[in-house]
Every structure is written in structure tokens, then in C-alpha cells.
């Protein structure tokens, strides 16, 4: 395809880095940064121990409401624990789960996808059958079975999510790898006698990174939501460790009377997922050379 039809596509290229930066949804970035910061600094910024119960101060409403006090800015829950402190500590768990799952999935899914796509043949069909199996399993139910077998714990929840989720990404990476394999630079590298591992590492990996980053970013929200569903079914990250999903799930019995117990974590989940999704969308557009035209 000749490059004449839309000259401005080229014209934009020199300034692309800056333009891209300018288009970074600042609010989304800020939300994610805030969540990460809260996760890192929880012990120092949380006003209370998130697990400390206080039966005399149950269901304290948020500070601005009748009966609220500045002791519990966002109110307290059914066991008198400070909602704000739990939100801040919850960031630690939720972000840890999200980041750990997404990063591990990215590594696992990418590795398997590249190997399957590059090696082809029997390796490919074995790995992809494996992915097929995972994709055909109702993964929530499998997670339930496994958790009820090994018990709910933070690490178990992470491992289960990772094991169940890599297949989708590996499919995408495999498809791209197969296309890249046909490209000249790979052929050239082969001719030059470069070994397959090195080709995959140096030539294929950088080229699939775009998709990996985009899919992974979009996965952050999905993982947080998945953990919340596990909590809803009683098999999420176990208490007293606070997780956002668990807080929403626990607070649902007080939806109308002590709405703050579940509303704030619900809003935080929504905000962070939204921010992650927006960033994912933005990355998709910024990294896809084709979408640059739009």
C-alpha cells in the first residue's frame, strides 16, 4: 500500500510521543496512582487498624451525616471497623491481586502464546488444546471447586485466577506470533542463524507487547471484579483481610440502612476498573499504528 492517501498520518509521527502523553486520560491515571499509593502507604495513612473491631461504634454513619463523627470519616461497618481504613488497606489486597494476576497472566499467556505460535505443529496443538479446555470450563465454578478444596487464601485466590485466565491472552499472542513468523525480519533472522529462543525473545516478543499490555490493562478491572464475585459467594480473600470486593459483598445486607458499608467500596471498585479500562482503551489507540489515523 502506498503511503500517499493520508499524508497527515505521516505528518503526525514526529510529535507522536508528546501527543500520546497529552491524550493520557489524566483522571484515570490519577485514580490508579491513588489506588497504588494507598496500597503502598496503607500502614501509614490509614487512621485505624482495618481489622480492629469496636462493638460500641457499629454502623457509625459518615462524618457529614446526622450522627456521624470525624472519628469515622466514611462511617463504620457492622463490626465497628472504620470503612476508610478498610478501603485503604483493601487497596493493598485488591491491587495486589489485580497486579499479581495480570502480570503473571501476561508472562504465562505471552510465553505460551509465543511458543505455540512460533513452534507450531504438535507443541502448538497441545498448548492450544490446553487453552481450549480452560476456555470451555466455566471458570467461576472451577474456582469455586478449587477454593472449597484448598481453602480461600490470598495466594490461593491469585493462583486460581492466574491459572484460569492465561488462555485468552495466549490465543491472541499466538495469532500475532503466527503472523509475525511470516514476516521478512523473522525469515532474515532465521537465515542469519539466530536460534529460535533468541528470535522469540528479541524479534517476536517486542512485537506482541502492544497487545499484551493492552489486554493486561483491560484485565485489571476484570480481576478486581472476579475477586468481588468470589467474595460474594463466600470464597474470596478471607477476612479479616479487607478487600474491596469482600467489603461490597459483606455490606450488601445493609444496603438500605447502612449503605456506606457497601457503597464506598463499590464506588472505588467502579472507579478503579473504569480507570483501568480507560487506560486500556487509550493504550490500545496509542499503540495501534492503524488507529493513529482515526
Amino acid at each position, binding site marked *: 500500500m502506498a503511503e500517499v492517501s493520508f499524508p497527515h498520518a505521516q505528518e503526525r509521527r514526529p510529535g507522536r510521543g508528546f501527543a500520546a502523553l497529552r491524550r493520557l486520560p489524566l483522571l484515570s491515571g490519577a485514580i490508579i496512582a491513588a489506588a497504588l499509593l494507598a496500597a503502598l502507604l496503607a500502614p501509614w495513612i490509614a487512621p485505624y487498624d482495618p481489622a480492629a*473491631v469496636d462493638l*460500641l461504634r457499629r454502623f457509625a454513619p459518615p462524618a457529614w451525616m446526622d450522627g456521624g463523627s470525624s472519628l469515622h470519616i466514611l462511617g463504620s461497618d457492622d*463490626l465497628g471497623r472504620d470503612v476508610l481504613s478498610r478501603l485503604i488497606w483493601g487497596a493493598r489486597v485488591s491491587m495486589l491481586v489485580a497486579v499479581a494476576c495480570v502480570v503473571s497472566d501476561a508472562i504465562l499467556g505471552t510465553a505460551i502464546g509465543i511458543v505455540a505460535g512460533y513452534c507450531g505443529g504438535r507443541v502448538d496443538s497441545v498448548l492450544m488444546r490446553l487453552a481450549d479446555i480452560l476456555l470451555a470450563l466455566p471458570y467461576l465454578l472451577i474456582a469455586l471447586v478449587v477454593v472449597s478444596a484448598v481453602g*480461600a487464601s490470598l495466594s490461593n485466590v491469585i493462583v486460581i485466577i492466574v491459572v484460569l485466565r492465561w488462555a485468552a491472552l495466549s490465543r491472541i499472542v499466538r495469532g500475532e506470533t503466527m503472523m509475525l513468523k511470516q514476516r521478512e525480519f523473522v525469515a532474515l533472522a532465521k537465515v542469519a542463524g539466530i536460534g529460535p529462543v533468541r528470535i522469540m525473545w528479541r524479534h517476536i516478543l517486542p512485537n506482541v507487547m502492544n497487545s499484551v499490555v493492552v489486554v493486561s490493562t483491560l484485565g485489571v478491572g476484570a480481576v478486581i471484579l472476579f475477586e468481588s464475585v468470589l467474595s460474594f459467594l463466600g470464597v474470596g480473600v478471607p*477476612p479479616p483481610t479487607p478487600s474491596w470486593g469482600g467489603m461490597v459483598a459483606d455490606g450488601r*445486607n*445493609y*444496603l438500605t*440502612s447502612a*449503605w456506606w458499608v457497601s457503597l464506598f467500596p463499590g464506588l472505588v471498585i467502579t472507579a478503579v476498573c473504569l480507570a483501568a479500562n480507560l487506560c486500556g482503551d487509550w493504550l490500545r489507540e496509542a499503540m495501534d499504528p492503524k488507529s493513529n489515523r482515526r
Partner: protein
Amino acid sequence: MASLRDLTKPLLAAAIAAGASLVPWAAAAQSRITIAINTLGPETWWPQDIANNKYLTGTIGDPLVRLVSPYKLEPALASSWKVSDDGLTYEFTIRNDVLFHDGSKLTAEDAAFTFAPENAQNYVGFSRMKNGNIVSVEAQGDRVIMKLKEAIPFMIDGYISRISIRPKAYLQRVGVEGFNKQPIGTGPFKVVEHVKSQHVKMVANDNYFGGRPKVDELIWRVVPEPATRLAMLRNGEADVTYNELGASTGELQRYGMRAVSFGLPRQSVLVFNHLLRKENLPSRFADVRVRRALTMAIDREAVANAIYFGKDRAAALLIMPRDTPSLDPKYRPLAYDPVRAKALLAEAGLSGGFKVDLYAPNNLKDLAVLMVSYWQRIGIDAKLSLLDPASLNNAWFNRTLSGDAIILSQILANGVASLVYLDPAAQVVTYYSPETDALRVAGTAIVDPARQDEWFLKVFAPKLDQLYPVPVILEGRDGVFGLGQRVKDWSKFELHAMGFQWLTPQ
């Protein structure tokens, strides 16, 4: 958001007033009561799954003898009964004025059929009555005579009173499948419609021998999500809701809704792992001071008031005897005293505190979280694992929990359950300690309830401190029913689903 609540009430009232005829589910007959419940179990009528299905079983049928309070038995379909001294022969005299829903008369044959050894498989969870322990059940005129191979402690309280009598002739005529399509019994309500996993519709049995129920129509609806059940109670879709202890009862209270607790008293206990694990290692739990410290660290009165709806209290004893033990200072629960608890730990050489695993079933989550928090204050670092009941039981029964672990468990709090649990033959040996071993065996051997009770108070109760399970909270009942506006009274709400006969509509 603050105004949501204020907004809700007038809207709700308006909806009920103006829209009652427009909204189909609100357009109820005056005496129709809808009960939203978490589960009705497998919803089979034969076999009758007593463990999971007590409401259905109890509402359409009656047992021979009814347990009306933790220790009180009343005649139901049997006008009288006798137990032989060795506890091996039971004789029931069947009333002759009871009709099944199809109009046929209840006879001793029906009772004999219900308990026949070949039908024992139909009682899920009644292991001791299975596997050949029932030698024979015979009908002789208006009497039924049951012979056992081995005595079963609290046979009537624990078993007979929970099985409702099924019509032999009808069952044989229509078969199991037919019976499950249209089950009949002697109970206060008749089944008119049963849509599995959704609802069971019942109407009053005009000829009920205990008097016609005041409710014309009783609808059971299966609603697994507690928040949804509360919503149903609030918008009038349900008149009665089952509520798990803890969480949702607080919400009921906040709306000024009435609640009644139901079922047999239970209590939450701490079970120490060291005698339940495979390896026989020394354990810090063997020291009674440690066990006491764990108990005293928890403000049990506050916990009971806060999460158990004020209906429950700190438990003193593992087993609740017939006579109220609270009168006797000996049976008063250990008071909340974290300072003393710390001192006890120090005496036991654990002044630095220790780490422990706490396993709890997920329905006791709040209690477990509270305990972890309280223990933390005396330096005990407990790591909580919530398991679903089957996992917990399996871990426990198969002795797969290792190290010093504590299990939070819930058991029935009357003599029946406790003695059953203490039965040395039981696979699930729950509670024992070297000090009480001999006593356990002796107590189980007593068949006569009166003598057993005497034995309990005189001999066993003083030694309870030596038992390893530590009682934490005595819960009044199994759970709580929330009552909507159309339920006027529930005057005679007793242990079994029979209580639904006494529901009074507005």
C-alpha cells in the same frame, strides 16, 4: 442518600395502598402467608431429608412424638410410648382419629412402614438407625413395636421426633415418583403446587387433628440471597423471611421489623485440634489456663448483643441441662477479663503470646472475625481460614488439620446433641479429654432421660472445665425469622416447622 430511607417508607406505603390490586404479587388473599427461605434442601418428600428439609417434612406431616422445647416431649401421632429399660424396645400407641390428606386413616401400619429397616435409607443423616441397627418394626393393632440391636441415646428426642409418618398404602399405590409429585401426610398443611427450586404452595388442612391452621395459604419461596429476602420483606413480597444469624438480623432491627428466633438452641464452641490430629504431640491447649485465657479475652456479652440480635448470651457450659444453670454460680460463664487472660497466658509460660490457626465455617464469619480481633489484644495472633461446612468437616473428621489449630464450630446445645457427640462409638469424636473419658462412656450408657439428666448435673457438669471444647456463645435458636406487616402473631412458635400452624395473619 440520607433521604433514601425517608423516601422509601411513603413510597412503599403508597405502593401497597394504591397498587395492591395492580401489582399481582401484592394482591394476596387475606390469609396467605409467603415465606422466603434460603433453601428447602433437595425438595424430595420421600426420602424425607430431615437434615435439609425440615420445614417441608414438618409442615405436611407429623412425627409420633414431638420435641417442643430442648427437653420436652409431647405426644403427636402417638398418644403414648414406652421404652424398655435396656433401651432396645420402643412401643408407640397410635392415635385413631388422624386422617391423611387423602382422607384415609392413619394406622400403626403406616408408622411401621415409615420406620421399616428397608426404608431406613430414606432418612438422610440418621446413621444410627441404619445399617441393621433396627432389627424389626411391627404393627400390632394400634401399637408399633420397634426393636433395636444397640441402644441409641436420646432416640426419641434426636430421631423419632424428627421423622414424619408417611402413608403406606398411598405410597405403595402411587410409587416414589407419584408421591413426590403429590405428597400427602397428616400435617396442618396440604401441598397443592410444588415447583422445584422455586416454591411450594400449601393450603390449610381443614381436618387437622391439632386444629385447623389460621392461615389459608402458605407459600414457601426459595430465595438464596439474604439481601433479596430482606428486600422481599420490605416490599411485601414475603411476609416471613428466614434470616441467618448475625448479619441480616441487624438490618431487620433497623427497620423496626419483628423477628422470632426458631429451632433448637445451639452454641458456638472452640474445639482444639491437638487431640484430633494424627500425630500425638504435646500442645499448649492441654493447659486449662490457655483455654480459659482464650475464653476470657472475648467480650462475649457484647458479641452476643451486637451480632446476635440480643437474643443470645455468653455460654457457660458445653451442655445445657434441663434446669436453668444460670441460677447456680458454678455455671456462670467466665467473665470478660483481658487482663486476667493475659495473666493466665503468662502463668502458662506464654507471655509473649503465640500464633494459631483458626478454622471456621463461613456462616460464622462475623463471630470468627471478632474473636481474632479480641485475641489480638492479648497477644494471640490468629490466622483465620473460612471453609465451607463440608471442607471443615472433612478436615476435621479426616484429621488433616495439623499444628495447633482451633476450630470454631456450632453444635446443638441440648443434651441430645451433646451426648450424641460424646458417644465413643461415633466416627466424629468431637469432644473428649483424658479426664472425662470414663465419664463419657458412663453417661452414654444411661438410657433413661431422667437418670441421664441427673448424672449430667451431678457428675459431668462439675468436670466441664476439663473438657476441651470451650463454649463461646449460646445462640438461642437456629436462626431468626423476620416478620412482615401482614403477620399479626406467631404465638406458639416452637422447635419444629409445626410452628407455622400458629402463624396468625393480620
